[in-house]
């Protein structure tokens, strides 16, 4: 009886960390890596993930991120399925990281200069435009760099 209890205890100890993992997030990232065009909703979900927010539904997450000033009021009404533009992602990243490296971005705070600010911070390449559509794997890379900058890599 004692051994059975021990065995049960060992199984539980090993099983808890595995069961606590969220396979939904893993599947989301894996599926995203194959997308030729990332959607606005993908960026919203990713920002919710790295900022530790629950992503119950898109509308609520957008509201939460807008409250945190990560999403611009103009983007709050955007279609979730719309292709994700570099400018939109850069703007969200610049706000999330509170970037102030670029003087022009510090003054104008628009998407065009957000791309410049992100390039200066090493998150994006500088030779790209704000209207470019981001692929799924590009979004993962940018989010990885943001994650690293906020100390998530440690």
């Amino acid at each position: 009886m004692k051994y059975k209890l021990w065995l049960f205890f060992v199984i539980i100890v090993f099983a808890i960390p595995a069961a606590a993992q969220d396979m939904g997030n893993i599947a989301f990232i894996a599926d995203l890596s194959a997308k030729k065009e990332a959607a606005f909703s993908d960026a919203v979900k990713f920002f919710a993930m790295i900022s530790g927010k629950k992503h119950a539904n898109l509308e609520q997450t957008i509201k939460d991120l807008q409250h945190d000033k990560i999403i611009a009021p103009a983007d709050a009404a955007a279609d979730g399925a719309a292709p994700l533009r570099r400018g939109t992602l850069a703007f969200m990243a610049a706000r999330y990281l509170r970037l102030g490296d670029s003087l022009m971005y510090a003054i104008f705070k628009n998407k065009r200069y957000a791309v410049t600010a992100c390039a200066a911070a090493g998150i994006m390449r500088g030779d790209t435009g704000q209207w470019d559509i981001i692929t799924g794997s590009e979004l993962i890379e940018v989010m990885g760099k943001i994650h690293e900058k906020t100390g998530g890599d440690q």
Partner: protein
Amino acid sequence: MKRLRKGLLLAAMIVYSTTPAFSAILVVSTKGDAAYKEGGHWKPLAKGQELKEGVQISTGVNSQAVLNIDEHMLTIKPLTMIKVYKNSLSKSASENNIGLKYGSVNARVKRIGALKTKFNITTPVATSSVRGTNEDVGYGPLSGMFIRVNEGSIGATDNNGGSRIVSGRSLYQLLWGNVRPENLASGLRNNSITLFHLGNITDEEKDALNKYGDQITDNFEDNANFLDTVAGRLTTVTVDLQWQPY
């Protein structure tokens, strides 16, 4: 009987804690969301789990997984996807090939006696072959592939057949779409732009500033230019460090 049981338990613990003598991929630890793909579904990785060649592993935000692959340690960092293409170990050779789809990994590759060791990390743009070293390898479509050698040396071969030996603290970087990798000293160069405070420099420094400008390291064309050639021979510079006793 009790002693026998204790002995068996101890033996089992020793076997469990030591590295495998046969080809094996063992999960040493996990943090956050770390999963492997089986039957088209993502399943959580667990400490102590054994995986097979061909396994695909993915990590999420704030997550990582450490694998023991034939005594070599591979740390899969957050937001990374890898696939173990090859994992074989024989009496004479150990061969492993890891495909890095995106993200970054740290590989600590052991030199195991006289065993011929091959540990390759392949990305869509280049392959890093490692032996007895410690390196960080990353890949992303925007920044391409980077290899940071922390210890030992590695060989990097791009898809066009070009190869380079990277050692010391050099950074190998091959941008997506570029045929050639960046200068090995690019990391050093980009981190070496010096700001001079004119009121606080010596006369010699002022002369050097007037002569070469403030970005002296930008003059390097390639890694070989670090070494000066005199009459066809490499010139070595010896630096003696002397510690003064208190």
